[in-house]
């Protein structure tokens, strides 16, 4: 196997893993603290991408558009919390799943009506649009490195927020004992809304970052939501560390599977059969891993401390 190809694919996997982490971290925050299953989390990923794409054309610069689009996405997240999620906190998970399933349909269709079905290709500033030669044979699109850097920065920011700020303290306290935090006089409604908005911004950021590569399009969230759930289940619901490790794991497995599985299969089956079955098997890999993890550790790899 070509070593530089392996390095490139590993970086691609890292990039996917970090994007997954941005989506999954919001999901795990919301789940861990609010005990709310939000299937529509990925619709916020899509909405963020669309808003950023439109703003890129209005403002003429992708980076400025990201900065402006983030708080807007947070606001939309806040609205979702206020009008759909909040009345459901006292219900069981089944109701969460169904209501947010409905919310996916609503937000997808609204995006279809507002932005049309064609999707928006997002242009990058010229200095981001080139390639970086790490070594002679190792050439990467520079924007992919930007995603990796941005993903790492967001992850670091989130760790700082959760571990070293008062808000983070409340979040951690809320994750381990919600009622107690409320009883201590913390405005729990405000805290919940804030957590939801932060989650929305993180998902939106992931959507914004990916849109110059794929594009902003309806349905883009469907690809990512199930994978993000796999990430938080494998990592242990409510655990930030678990989400981070699981996201990188899943990102790497998915990318490396797509890249090398057919070559591996070709060692013991015909070339045609390998080319046909490898894509599907690599798509199955992450679910197999999830089932294995849950079979051995029903609470995921890093379950947060019991409440």
């Amino acid at each position: 196997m070509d070593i530089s190809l392996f390095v490139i694919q590993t970086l691609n996997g890292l990039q996917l893993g970090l994007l997954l982490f941005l989506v999954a971290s919001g999901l795990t925050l919301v789940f861990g603290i609010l005990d709310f299953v939000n299937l529509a989390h990925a619709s916020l990923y899509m909405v963020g991408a669309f808003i950023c794409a439109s703003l890129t054309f209005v403002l003429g610069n992708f980076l400025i558009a990201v900065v402006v689009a983030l708080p807007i996405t947070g606001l939309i997240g806040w609205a979702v919390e206020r009008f759909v999620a909040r009345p459901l906190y006292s219900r069981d998970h089944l109701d969460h799943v169904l209501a947010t399933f409905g919310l996916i349909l609503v937000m997808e269709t609204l995006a279809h009506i507002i932005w049309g079905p064609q999707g928006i290709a997002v242009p990058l500033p010229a200095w981001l649009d080139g390639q970086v030669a790490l070594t002679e044979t190792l050439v990467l699109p520079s924007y992919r490195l930007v995603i990796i850097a941005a993903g790492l920065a967001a992850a670091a920011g989130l760790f700082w927020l959760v571990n070293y700020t008062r808000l983070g303290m409340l979040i951690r306290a809320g994750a381990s004992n919600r009622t107690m935090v409320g009883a201590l006089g913390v405005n729990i409604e405000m805290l919940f809304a804030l957590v939801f908005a932060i989650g929305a911004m993180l998902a939106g950021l992931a959507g914004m970052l990916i849109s110059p590569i794929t594009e902003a399009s309806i349905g883009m969230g469907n690809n990512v939501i199930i994978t993000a759930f796999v990430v938080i289940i494998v990592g242990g619901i409510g655990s930030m560390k678990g989400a981070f490790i699981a996201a990188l794991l899943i990102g790497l497995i998915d990318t490396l599977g797509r890249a090398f599985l057919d070559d591996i299969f070709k060692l013991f089956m015909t070339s045609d059969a390998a080319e046909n079955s490898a894509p599907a098997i690599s798509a199955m890999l992450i679910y197999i891993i999830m089932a294995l993890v849950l079979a051995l550790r029903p609470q995921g790899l890093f379950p947060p401390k019991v409440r």
Partner: protein
Amino acid sequence: MTLRTLITVIAMALLAVLPPVFYMTGNPFYLDLATRLTILAIAAVSLNLILGYGGLVSFGHAAYLGLGAYAVGVPAHHWLYGGLESWGLATTSGLVQFPLAIAVCAVFALLTGAICLRTKGVYFIMITMAFAQMIYYAIVSIQEYGGDDGLVIDTRSELPLVNLDNPLELFGLAYVSLVVAMLLVRMIVKSRFGMVLQGAKGNNERVITLGLNTYAYRLTAYVISGAMAGYAGALLGNFTTFISPEMMDWTRSGELMFMIILGGTATTGGPVLGAAAFILLEEILSSLTVYWHLPFGLLLIAVVLFGKGGLMGMLAAIRKPKSQETGE
């Protein structure tokens, strides 16, 4: 006869009479709609056994529908194009295909259920979905059966007494199957087994302290439910004469759950009302606008937020606004 039973009987009577009338008056499409509705209602009834009565929120029930349909399509495919003769699976006989559908689904439910039931809450929701996704991608990878493209079933199952190529007879079989499925679930729920299942939904620890192995009870219910859904899948395959992995997509599982919530969980007739409302709404809304997912989604949210007890609960509440119905 309680009000809920009355509603269920009326609904079933309408379902028995209306579709054939439509068919004979030159509207065969509505018979198709009713057949589809009836088959999905069987799947919803089977899901209701574990979700409604057992409190086990399975987000992967569409996998059984799909597997059941493939149990019809795959033997029919081999019957036409060769292969698997030595296994006796190159056949169009429904007497092989239907038991195969039930057996395959029961085994799949047993294997996955044994793992899934070790988890609880949202982990259970997600792991059932993960197994469904695995089957989805496994089917996608099998090129012989069309992979992503699916497979046209050229010959429907051959059964004694009924000819499934006749849409009326196909509907009749589906209808009778639905009635049997409803009675079966009702019987299970009323039995001691069903009592334990429902008890475990309310308070698992308490039932365990009574010395009962709820895991075994739940696993049994899970297998029964999967097998019933597999039977529904075999009917669905015969109805659509087309199978594709799309049948087991996670959104399909979500739709089955919605049917139960819409109709009313843990009631005999709820899943049927829910399936009927779901199919009719989908049909009417999608004929009005291509943006029909918008009102559909809003309705879904509204039902969850405000529709206590689903259609069954609302209908039952009309006549008895004060006294609360308990049981049936």
